[in-house]
C-alpha cells in the first residue's frame, strides 16, 4: 500500500515479523518501550525489546482473589488479560521526588527538573486507555496540574491492543470502555494468528507505521477480526448495571451491606494499588542529620490507610466499614460529580487482586437488592 494513502483511521495488515522493527523504530525515536512480561507467575509492565519478551502463548484465568497463567501453546502474544500492574505507574509514579530544599542561610528550593522519560506503552487495552483518560481529568486541570504527569503524557506513545479473550472479572462493556479501543491511541492492534490488524490513530502512529511493509487487509480478515471482537463483547465475565449510579450509592450511605462488607475487607489497600484510576497521594519530607538538605517526595497513598483521614482529635473514618464505603462511594459515586465520569473502567483488577475476593459488582448488586426490598 503506497505510503501516501495511509491516513488516520486506516487499517492495515501487518505481518508479525514486522513488529520488532516497529519497536526498534520507537526506540530510535527516543521512546522507552515498556510492555507486558511474564514474571513471578504474573504479568508485569516492564521495559521490553522484542516480541519475545511478550507473554507468548499465555492466557490467564482470573477470579475473585485468584490469578493463574495458562499456557495455550499458540503463537499469539496478546491473549492474556493484564495483571496487577497498570500503566498508571508510568504517568503517576509510586514515588516521585518533588524538590530538594537546601538551607544556605535561608532555605532555597531546587525543583525536580529532570527531563521526563518518553514511554511507548506496548499493549494498552481499551479499559487501560480509558483509565489514562480518567486520570488526565485528575492530573491536568486548570486549578491544579502535575507538570511531570503532563510531560510524560505529552511524550507518550500508545500502542493499543483490542481484547479478544476477556476473563471472568472483566466488565468493560458495562462501563462503556471496551473491549474495542476508542480514540486516543497512536496505533491499535487486533491480533490474528499470523498478523496484526493495525489501525492508525494519530499522525505519529501513521509515520511510524509508514516505514513498515504491510498490506490492505482482505474483507475476510477484517471479518474474522470483527467477529472476534463481537465475541469478546458478548463474553464479558461480569456486568454492572450503572443505570442508577451514582445515586444508588450516594443515597444509601447507611445500607446494611456496608457493615457486612466491612467485616470481610482487610483494609489491605490492594485494590487502590492495582486500580488504574486511583490517584490519592501523600507527601513526605526526608531531612539529613545536619538538617540542611531535605527531600520532598510524593508517594501513592490509599483511603484504606488508617491514617488517611486523621484529624486533630481522632480519625473521621476509624472503621474498615467506613473506609470501604469511602472507596466505593468515591469510585462509583462522588467521582462523577468531581470529574464528570465514573472512576471505574471495568478492568476487574480490584476483584482479582482482593485477597478475600470482594467483588464490587456483587456489592453494588447487593445494595441495590437491599434498597429495593
Amino acid at each position, binding site marked *: 500500500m503506497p505510503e501516501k494513502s495511509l491516513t488516520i483511521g486506516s487499517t492495515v495488515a501487518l505481518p508479525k515479523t514486522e513488529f520488532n522493527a516497529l519497536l526498534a523504530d520507537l526506540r530510535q525515536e527516543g521512546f522507552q518501550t515498556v510492555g507486558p512480561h511474564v514474571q513471578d507467575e504474573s504479568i508485569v509492565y516492564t521495559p521490553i525489546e522484542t516480541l519475545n519478551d511478550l507473554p507468548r502463548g499465555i492466557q490467564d484465568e482470573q477470579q475473585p482473589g485468584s490469578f493463574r497463567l495458562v499456557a495455550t501453546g499458540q503463537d499469539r502474544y496478546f491473549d492474556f488479560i493484564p495483571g496487577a500492574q497498570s500503566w498508571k505507574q508510568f504517568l503517576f509514579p509510586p514515588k516521585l521526588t518533588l524538590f530538594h530544599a537546601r538551607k544556605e542561610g*535561608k*532555605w532555597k528550593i531546587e525543583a525536580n527538573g529532570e527531563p521526563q522519560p518518553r514511554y511507548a506503552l506496548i499493549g494498552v487495552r481499551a479499559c487501560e486507555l480509558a483509565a489514562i483518560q480518567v486520570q488526565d481529568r485528575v492530573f491536568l486541570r486548570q486549578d491544579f496540574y502535575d507538570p511531570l504527569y503532563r510531560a510524560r503524557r505529552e511524550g507518550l506513545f500508545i500502542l493499543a491492543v483490542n481484547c479478544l479473550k476477556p476473563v471472568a472479572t472483566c466488565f468493560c462493556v458495562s462501563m462503556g470502555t471496551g473491549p474495542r479501543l476508542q480514540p486516543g491511541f497512536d496505533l491499535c492492534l487486533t491480533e490474528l494468528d499470523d498478523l496484526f490488524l493495525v489501525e492508525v490513530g494519530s499522525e505519529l502512529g501513521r509515520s511510524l507505521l509508514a516505514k513498515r511493509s504491510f498490506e490492505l487487509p482482505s474483507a475476510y480478515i477484517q471479518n474474522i477480526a470483527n467477529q472476534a471482537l463481537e465475541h469478546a463483547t458478548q463474553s464479558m465475565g461480569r456486568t454492572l448495571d450503572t443505570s442508577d449510579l451514582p445515586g444508588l450509592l450516594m443515597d444509601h450511605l447507611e445500607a446494611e451491606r456496608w457493615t457486612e462488607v466491612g467485616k470481610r475487607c482487610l483494609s489491605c489497600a490492594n485494590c487502590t494499588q492495582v486500580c488504574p484510576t486511583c490517584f*490519592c497521594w501523600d507527601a513526605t519530607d526526608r531531612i539529613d542529620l545536619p538538617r540542611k538538605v531535605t527531600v520532598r517526595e510524593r508517594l501513592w497513598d490509599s483511603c484504606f490507610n488508617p491514617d488517611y483521614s486523621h484529624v486533630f482529635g481522632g480519625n473521621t473514618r476509624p472503621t474498615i466499614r467506613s473506609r470501604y464505603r469511602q472507596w466505593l462511594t468515591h469510585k462509583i459515586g462522588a467521582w462523577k460529580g*468531581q470529574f464528570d465520569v465514573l472512576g471505574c473502567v471495568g478492568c476487574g483488577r480490584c476483584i482479582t487482586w482482593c485477597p478475600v475476593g470482594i467483588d464490587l459488582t456483587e456489592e453494588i448488586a447487593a445494595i441495590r437488592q437491599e434498597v429495593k426490598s
Partner: protein
Amino acid sequence: MTTTMTNQTAHSAGYADRLLQPDWAEIAKITPEAEGVVSYWFKFLDPAIQSRYHFAPGQFNMLYVPGCGEAAISMSSDPDAPDGLLGHTVRLVGNVTKAIGRLKVGEVVGVRGPFGAPWPLDAIQGLDVVVASGGIGLPPLRPALHHITHHRDQYGKVTLLYGARSPKDLLYQNEYEGWKQAGIDVQVTVDRGDESWNGRVGVVPMWFYNFRVDPRKTAVLTCGPEIMIRFVIFEGLARRIPAERIFVSLERNMKCGQGACGHCQLGPYFICKDGPVFPFSALEKFVNVEEY
C-alpha cells in the same frame, strides 16, 4: 459542580503547577495567645509576593516546615492590616504545628496559598449575622470580624458567640472591647469558670434560647469543634434559619490544599477546594452520616 477557578486568587493560581513548592516567609512576630496556642505573623521574603498576596476571610495557607511537612492553617489576621503581616493562630498539637512552635522570630517557613472558599461576606450583606465560634474555631472567623467592623454599616445586628473550656483558654481577650465599640455584641461563655469569672458559664448553642433571631434576615457563620457546630446548626434550624444561610467551616486532613491528593474529601467535595466554608444546605446529606 466542582468549583475550579472561583476560589483561586491570581496569586494562588500560581501554585497550580508547582507540585507543593512553597514561597518563603519569615516570622516577623510571635504572640502567645493561650496555653498551647500561639500566633505567628509572617512577611514574605520576596517583596513582590508580599505586595501581591491577598486573602479573603476564611481562607487558609499550607505552611511548610522543611524536614517536617505541611499543615493547613487558616489566616486569622486582618486582610487589610496596614502592616501587611500575615497572621496565623496555631494550636501546637501535631508534628508540623509543634515544629512551627519551635521556630523563632526571623526564621522562615514555606507558604502556599491562599486556598479555599472564604466566608460569604458579600452575600450576607444587609443581614443580621451570628458568628458562633468555639476554641480554635475563632481564629478563622477573626478576619471576618475585621471585615465586618471595617464595613459595619453593610450588616445588621452582629453578634459574636465565643466559647472556650475555661477563662484562661479564651483567645484574643484584649480585642473584645474593641469589637464591642465597633458595634458587635460580644457574648463569651466558658464550659466552667472559677470564682473570679463573672462571665457566662454554658455552651455556645444555648445562646439561641436566650435571644431572639429573625430567621428571615439572619445568617450564621460557625467554626469550632464539630459537636459545637452540630448544635449551633441544630438550634439555628430549629429557629427556622434556612440551611442555605448557615455557613460552616469544616476541617479534614488536608495535605495539598488544591483538591489533588484526595485526603480531605467528604462525599463529592474536596474540603480544601470546594470548602472549607460551606452553606449547611450543601453538607446536610453527608455530615449526619456517621464516619463518612
